[in-house]
C-alpha cells in the first residue's frame, strides 16, 4: 500500500528502461518501494534497470517484454505485469514513448503510424486494462508521462507533440472518470530532459536532468496534483505561452 506521502510499495513501470522511468524508479525504491515490475522491449536494458532498482532498495523485481509498436499486446502486457507483482498495485507508470527526427519521417506513412502507436494508441489501450484492474482493487495511482510539448504543438515536432497532446487531453477526462473509485491519475509534463531520447537536440532553456524530474515526481505524488510540471516553473510559463498570438509564439519558439 502507498503511505501518507504517496510513496508506493508495489510499482509497475511500462517503458521501464527509459531514462526518466529509471530515475523515478530509483527514487521510489530509495523511499518505500519494494516490489517493481519493469516492462519494456529490450531485455538487457530491463535487467539493468531491475538491478539498479534492487541496488536502491527494491527486494523483488521482475520484467516483462513487449513492443509498443503493436497495441494488440497492451492488455496482455498489463495483466502479466500485474500478476508478477502479486499483491495490490500502488502505482502504474506509463513511460512509453518514441521521439524521431520529424524532418526525416513526416512524409513516411508507416513511420507516422509508428509514432502514433507508441505515443498514443498503445498507452491508451493499456490504460483501459489498468483502469479496470485498479478500480476493482479500490485504490492505486496511475502516472502518465506526457510532455510540455503537448501543451502547444510546434511545427518541428508536431507528430510527437500531437500524439502526446492526444494522450494528455484524454487522460484529463480519464482522471475525471476515476473520481470516487479510490484510483487517481496524474500527468507528468516534463520540459526538455537530457536523456537518450533527446541526445543530439540543441539545448533549450529549462532543460533539466532526469533526477530533477524524479524529484518533482516524488513531490507530485505527495501533493496529489493532477498535473506535475518539471521544472515547476513551466506551469506558469505556459500559462502565458499557450495564449500568445500565433506569430509571436512561432517567433519565440523559432518554428
Amino acid at each position, binding site marked *: *500500500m*502507498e*503511505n*501518507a*506521502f504517496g*510513496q508506493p*510499495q508495489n510499482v509497475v513501470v511500462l517503458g521501464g528502461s527509459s531514462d526518466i522511468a529509471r530515475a523515478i524508479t530509483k527514487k521510489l525504491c530509495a*523511499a*518505500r518501494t*519494494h516490489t517493481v515490475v519493469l516492462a519494456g522491449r529490450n531485455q538487457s536494458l530491463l535487467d539493468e534497470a531491475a538491478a539498479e532498482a534492487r541496488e536502491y532498495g527494491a527486494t523483488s523485481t521482475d520484467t516483462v517484454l513487449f513492443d509498443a509498436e503493436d497495441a494488440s499486446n497492451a492488455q496482455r502486457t498489463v495483466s502479466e505485469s500485474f500478476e508478477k507483482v502479486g*499483491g*495490490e498495485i500502488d502505482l502504474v507508470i506509463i513511460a512509453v514513448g518514441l521521439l524521431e527526427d520529424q524532418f526525416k519521417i513526416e512524409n513516411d506513412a508507416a513511420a507516422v503510424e509508428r509514432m502514433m502507436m507508441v505515443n498514443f494508441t498503445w498507452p491508451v489501450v493499456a490504460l483501459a486494462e489498468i483502469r479496470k484492474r485498479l478500480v*476493482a*482493487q*479500490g*485504490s*492505486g495511482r496511475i502516472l502518465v508521462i506526457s510532455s510540455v510539448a503537448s501543451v502547444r504543438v510546434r511545427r518541428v515536432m508536431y507528430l510527437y507533440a500531437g500524439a502526446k497532446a492526444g494522450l494528455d487531453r484524454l487522460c484529463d477526462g480519464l482522471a475525471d472518470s476515476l473520481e*470516487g*473509485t*479510490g484510483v487517481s491519475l496524474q500527468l507528468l509534463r516534463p520540459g526538455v530532459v537530457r536523456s537518450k531520447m533527446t541526445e543530439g537536440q540543441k539545448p533549450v532553456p529549462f532543460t533539466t536532468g532526469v533526477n530533477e524530474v524524479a524529484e518533482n515526481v*516524488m*513531490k507530485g505524488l*505527495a*501533493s*496529489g496534483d493532477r498535473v506535475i510540471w518539471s521544472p515547476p516553473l513551466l506551469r506558469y510559463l505556459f500559462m502565458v505561452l499557450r495564449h500568445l498570438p500565433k506569430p509571436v509564439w512561432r517567433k519565440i519558439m523559432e518554428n
Partner: protein
Amino acid sequence: MSRTTLSGWGRTTQSIATLETPRDEDDVARDLNQSREVIARGLGRSYGDAAQLSGGVVLSNLELGGVSPIDLDGTISVGAGVSLDELLAFSIPQGWFVPVTPGTRQVTIGGAVAADVHGKNHHVDGSFGAHVKEMRIVTPAGALTISPTSDAELFWATIGGMGLTGVVISVTLTMMRIETNQVRVDTERFSDLDGVMAEMLANDMHYRYSVAWVDCMTKGARMGRAILTRGDHATRRETNKPTLTAPKSAKLFVPFDAPSGLLNPLTIKAFNELWFRSAPKHQVGEFQALSTFFHPLDGLRDWNRLYGRRGFVQYQFSVPDEAGDTVVQAIKRLSSSGVPSFLAVLKRFGPSNPGPLSFPIPGWTLALDLPVGPSALPRVLDDLDELVLGASGRIYFAKDARLSPEKVRAMYPRLDEFLAVKNRVDPEHQLASDLARRLDLVGS
C-alpha cells in the same frame, strides 16, 4: 452493502471498500464466511489506514451496541460499537469513569481494544487492555470468549492487534469509581525540555494523570518549552459543587476543508505562542470538568479538516527510560528542519502489557501532529524512525500512516509470535487492512 471511500482521521490515503454494518455475532460470522478479506472499523479515529481495506469488506462495528448494568465492583459488559462518549454518558451519573481514555471520547470500545489505547494515567493504570476481563470475538475459525485465563494467547494478541485477529463483538471491563465530574489540576510552565522531563520523572507518580504539551517550533534556549498539567479525580469533599453530570456533545464544527496552506509554519508558531502565554506559570488545585481535562478537542467537531485536503500525520513513538535523550533529539531534529508541528504531547509510560504488539514501553512517549506538505517531512520522519529504533523504541500503529515493514519488524521483536496466533485463527489470511498490507502484518 455499499462501496464507500474510507480514510483515517489524518485524511491522507483513501481507499474504496464494501461497507457492511453487521448487527450481531451471526452477521459478522456470515460476512467473514462470504468475503475474501475483511477488517473491522469503529469511529475511524485512528490517524492512518488501520480501519480501511481497499477492494475488501469493512465491517462497521457501530451497530454492535448494548451496555449492561454496572456491577458493584465496576464490572460492565459493553458492545464493541459503543463509543466512550456513549458509555460515559451512561456511567458518569452513576459514579463510574472509564479506566483509560484517549484524548477523545469519539472512539469505540472495539477500537480501544484493537489499539490498546493509553491515557494520561498509563504510568499508574496501564493501557485499556489491562482492564479488560473478557471479550467475545468472531475469528475466521469461529466465535470465542477469551480472557487472560481462557486462550490468553489470543486474548493478548487481540489487545493491540489492530483488528487482525478477529472482530470483537463485546467486551467486559472494570470501570473506575469517581465521586464527582471534576478533576483537580496542577499546571506548571517550563522554559525548556530538560526542566519538564526532570519534574515528570520526579513527581508524576504522585498524580494519576499527567501530560505535558511541548513547543517544537521554538529554536535556541527556549527549545522545547512546555506546559505540564497533572491531576486526580476530585473527591466530593474537595469540590464545593459535587455533581455527576456527563459531558455534552460538540456543537461547533468545521464545515469545509480549510485551504491547504492555512496551517503553515507562521500560523502554527503563532498558535503555539498564544497557547504558552495563556497558561499560568504555576497554578495548583484548579478544578476542571472531566471533558475539559481529558477531551479538550472534542469541543470542535471535525477539527481534522483544518489541515486541508492533503491532511496530516501524527508521529508517536515510545522509548525506554534510559533513552530519554531521544525525546530531546527528536524535537531538535524537528525544530531545526523547519517542519511545522503543533504542540507535541509528552507522557510517561508505565509497564507494558503482555501483548506481543503492545506499544507502551516503560519510559516516555511523544506524539506530534504534522501537516502533510513540506517536502522535507518524509525524510525527517524516516530519520526519526532510525533514532527511535536506535533507542529500542517503537511507533504506535493507531497513529501511523508512513512506517515501513522492515522498521516494524525491528521495533516489534515479538511480531512473529503475533503472526503465529493470527495464523492459527485466520489460516487463510482473511483479516487484513491497508495498514496490515503496508506493514506486512497480514501473514503468509
